């Protein structure tokens, strides 16, 4: 793979990665949000695979396959299963409306560029130039986590953050050591399983998984 193909592929993967994240803010239909999340998992796998092929590192390419399987197939499947158990499939009333959310996403992008300047300066390669994009996805995930009221949307917000962080890790140094990466993936999978069980329990206890009902414990 010559240099310009590498850069083009890298940018295409990053573009798809960011677009999927922003579109999550736009859609209210929970099934569509899960589809977008699966798409983003695919883009992340492609991104890592491009980096791996460029560096000729077979371990990274293998990791790309594993991460793709986890984030584009397994996690969306778990989310769909959690969705199938519930009646309401729409984000009823997000705390911030769609138009404002998209504007805020643009501002978060600017913030990400400002914050990641030292990172780009330390090692100005095509990969680190894409770090702001990954960081934007982290911030969008945090934003979804804070402003959405459906349990499932909050899980997606957490997973968007996690996708973004994984992307940062690979864009900066082709990933943290293998054992840490495996541990992280396992932890994410288990966290989603735990949250899925809790979602079912909340549905049994509260009737639906609108998190506005979570207000019994407060001071």
């Amino acid at each position, binding site marked *: 793979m010559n240099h310009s193909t590498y850069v083009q592929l890298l940018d295409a993967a990053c573009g798809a990665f960011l677009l999927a994240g922003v579109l999550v803010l736009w859609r209210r239909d929970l099934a569509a949000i899960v589809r977008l999340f699966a798409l983003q998992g695919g883009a992340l796998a492609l991104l890592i695979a491009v980096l791996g092929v460029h560096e000729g590192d077979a371990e990274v390419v293998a990791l790309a396959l594993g991460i793709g399987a986890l984030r584009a197939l397994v996690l969306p499947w778990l989310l769909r299963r959690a969705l199938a158990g519930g009646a309401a499939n729409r984000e009823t009333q997000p705390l911030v409306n769609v138009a404002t959310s998209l504007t805020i996403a643009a501002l978060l992008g600017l913030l990400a560029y400002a914050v990641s300047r030292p990172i780009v300066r330390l090692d100005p390669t095509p990969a680190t130039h894409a770090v702001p994009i990954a960081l934007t996805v982290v911030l969008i995930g945090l934003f979804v986590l804070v402003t959405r009221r459906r349990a499932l949307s909050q899980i997606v917000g957490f997973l968007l953050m996690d996708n973004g962080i994984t992307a940062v890790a690979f864009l*900066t140094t082709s990933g943290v050591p293998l*054992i840490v990466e495996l541990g992280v993936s396992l932890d994410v999978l288990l966290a989603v399983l735990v949250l899925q069980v809790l979602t079912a329990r909340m549905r049994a206890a509260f009737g639906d998984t609108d998190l506005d009902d979570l207000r*019994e414990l407060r001071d």
Partner: protein
Amino acid sequence: MTLLLIAPLGAPLLAAGAHAVPGRRRGTSWPGALSAAAVLASGIVLAVQTAGGPRTGLHGLLRADSLSAFMLIVIGAVALLAMLASPAYLAAEEAAGHATARDTRRYGVLTQAFVAAMALAVLAASLGTLWVAIEATTIVTAFLVGHRRTRNATEAAWKYVVICSAGIALAFLGVALLHFAAQHAHVPSSGSLDWTELAAHAGSLDPQVTRIAVALLVLGFGAKAGLAPLHAWLPDAHSQAPAPVSALMSGVLLSVAFYAVLRVKVIADAALGAGFARALLLTAALASLALAAALLLGQRDYKRMLAYSSIEHMGLLALGAAIGTPLAMTAVLLHVLGHGLAKSVAFLTSGHIQQAAGTSRIAAVRGFAARSPLIGGGFGAAVLALLGFPPFSLFASELAIFRAGFTAGLGWAVGAALVLLLVITAAVAAGTARMLLGAPGTGPGAATLPSRPPLGAAAGLLLGLSACAVLGIGLGPLHDLLLDAAAVLGAH
């Protein structure tokens, strides 16, 4: 040597396996206490062994120095208290119909896995393994927080997993960035997240990138340690979890997360100078103390009162770490142990009170000292210890932190902390007095008290309180260990 490092992980995992075997009912109480004792014993042996220098094992994956050995002792001691109290607590829960035999078995498996994850966190040679271990504690304890399956318990578990996972994800971003900085400082890539390698190359880490990484790490691990601003999960989780689990979470899990902050601070100080980490920790310390003081005033729930007291004590630890002199660091470590012992006794006795009164509202409990001198007295003594009264060791450690602060020129911060502590002391003492003193109530629930706890549980309470008091009088062999561990933290 490797065996000694694996023992603190293997013993709880074996006990978890023993709990997982279905059909065993009577014997299930002993594996837990035995494994906790094994963790404590290996901590003590490691403390002796590491006096000559750190030990590594399992292909460099595990590493123990004086600080790890000390933290293992804390984990083992608090786990022992919690495990001694668990059988009686679970029997009462089953008798009251709050839990089934299956819940009890799962409780045994999860608490042991929890202890193993904390032991892994303090024995991890690298920042990455430490991160994985701390995230694992969140996953394992999620179902322990939601043990009762009530609305409140489920709500608390949800908040706990979401806030802690998001917080710890930010810490992972910090890990990734620190890894990036390390690669460009020519740290060998095989061990580029190892504490020793990072500390050795800290001087050549890029300061700008390291600054972002350290801020994220302190924020993320601080969330798990219950430091403001990401503390919101703590009062809910600690008040809804079964009492022995609250004791473990409040007594050691917070300190294990704070241990991660302390390790990060060593690297931050070497790479950026002492000012950056100090500013972060001072902000977190004063914010946590102010928050605890504000919410303890007029607190109506005694388990939440203990939870906010944990935020207060984490704030004090952060204050001590911000001061960072040898005296302050030694005091911080002693405070970790003293707080672990006193807070677990407080939570364990509060579990008995809750089971007797049927509620955790302060107003519903009256004259408890007269109804059950052992439980009421234990709760009262533990709260006095937590408020920093002598002879308990928290008196000595708080005094040392304040003295160190004045010497280091941080008198303004110590002064502010003292004012907040005064408010906290008044609020907690008033709430506790209302529960313990006065004539026993005659309302509903007042008569259902099993006035005497079983032998194992009572022994645990007395053991915890007397250990805390003895440490306040003299440190004995712990003195050298504390000095060595403080030296690991860069306080020479």
